[in-house]
């Protein structure tokens, strides 16, 4: 097999250790990189071979967990989702995500994000509490109703939208694109009846009206969630409710699941004989 050509790339990483100093500094590392290598791979290389004290958060390596959000070449990315080659620079600058407190090196504290996420009550709220506790039937939902909020369910809570948002840069109390998008996601869910509770928060001083549609959150979102769209649609919902344009919202009716399911299809016949294969192999 042909050997992959290696290219030396300089990594400038913003270091911060609160136990030593309150100030930050840039540390430089030279990493041999190959095609397809991600920024996270480079950070792991540095930790394993050059400086084991480097701190960063990582888990899944496939843009699902949202742990490795960081500012790469002055743009928020997931490190595992960013190939070094696509950056097209000989020097890669890696910094912690802005607008979130830094614990050490590239590790930011995501608790403000989770606290705000919890504030918008990210769960189904219904008036018929006994039915929620002991369900007797299913909540019917059409594919169209599902599609009206499905996009916003892909949020991995990485904090990238908050670091991209210019309002979050100055207003620490601002709910932020992540929480507001989730607020819309649950308010639009046809099974949910918690609109009134969430609107109180969304319509507050630190709520939705502080978004001025810079669009950076949607631009930077690594999962294509588009929080800016959710926020503008939530604004429309709020205005429509305040002016009574949309009228009263009907909740999804309960539908008893079918008792008799369709007859099962017979299991397909194997086209390859296992024994023959084993003998040949």
């Amino acid at each position, binding site marked *: 097999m042909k050997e992959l050509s290696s290219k030396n790339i300089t990594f400038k990483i913003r270091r*911060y250790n*609160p136990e030593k100093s*309150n100030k*930050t500094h840039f540390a430089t590392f030279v990493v041999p990189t190959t095609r397809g290598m991600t920024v996270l791979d480079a950070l792991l290389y540095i930790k394993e071979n050059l400086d084991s004290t480097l701190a960063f958060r990582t888990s899944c390596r496939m843009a699902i967990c949202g742990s490795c959000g960081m500012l790469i*070449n*002055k*743009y928020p990315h997931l490190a595992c989702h960013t190939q070094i080659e696509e950056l097209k620079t000989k020097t890669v600058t890696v910094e*912690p*995500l*802005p*607008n*979130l*407190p*830094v*614990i050490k090196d590239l590790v*930011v*504290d995501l*608790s*403000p994000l989770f*606290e*705000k996420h919890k504030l918008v009550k990210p769960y189904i709220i219904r008036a018929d509490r006994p039915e929620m506790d002991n369900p007797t039937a299913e909540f019917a939902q059409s594919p169209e109703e599902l*599609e*009206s*909020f*499905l*996009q*916003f369910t*892909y949020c991995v809570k990485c904090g990238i939208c908050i670091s*991209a*948002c*210019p309002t*979050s*840069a*100055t207003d*620490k109390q601002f709910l932020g694109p992540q929480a507001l998008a989730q607020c819309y996601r649950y308010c639009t869910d046809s099974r949910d009846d918690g609109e009134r509770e969430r609107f109180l928060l969304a319509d507050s001083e630190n709520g939705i009206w502080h*978004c*001025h*549609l*810079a*669009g*950076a959150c*949607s*631009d*930077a*979102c690594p*999962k*294509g*969630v*588009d929080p*800016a*769209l*959710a926020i*503008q*649609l939530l*604004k*429309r919902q709020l*205005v429509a409710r305040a002016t009574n344009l949309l009228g009263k919202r009907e909740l999804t009716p309960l539908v008893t699941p079918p008792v008799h399911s369709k007859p099962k299809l017979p299991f397909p016949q194997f086209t390859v004989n296992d024994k023959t294969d084993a003998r040949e192999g």
Partner: protein
Amino acid sequence: MREPHPKRKNYLGIMGWIWGGNYRIERYLYTLHRVTGLGILLFFLVHLCVTTFFRMQQQSWEAAMEILHNPWFKLGEYLVVLAFAYHSLNGLRLIIQELGFGMGKPAPPIYPYRDSLRKSRRWSMALVGTAALIALVFLYDFLVGG
């Protein structure tokens, strides 16, 4: 809300408004909207100060008018017209889009992702084009008309 363990504050502050980084055009339209808004506010303050001279002696008023005939003030007036044109047009775009119109519908995120602002970029480009046209018309007036 729970205050985190003593950590380095990493808020961008006002720089977060100004610095557009590698973001798309809408992020720069946002910055320009703020800058033109502040410019118009400054114009109103200067305008208020100048018009108070009208209530004073005639000499003060004429002296103020003399200063305003300075070419730099003429350039400032031109910039104010541009700021008005851009701020009002972009303001209209924001009112329409902030009410969820022209933003499209939620769609399953399939790579490469195209967010709603990218899908409705033609409106932003139309806005920039109209503002540029107004700028050129007034530039002609500024250069030729004096």
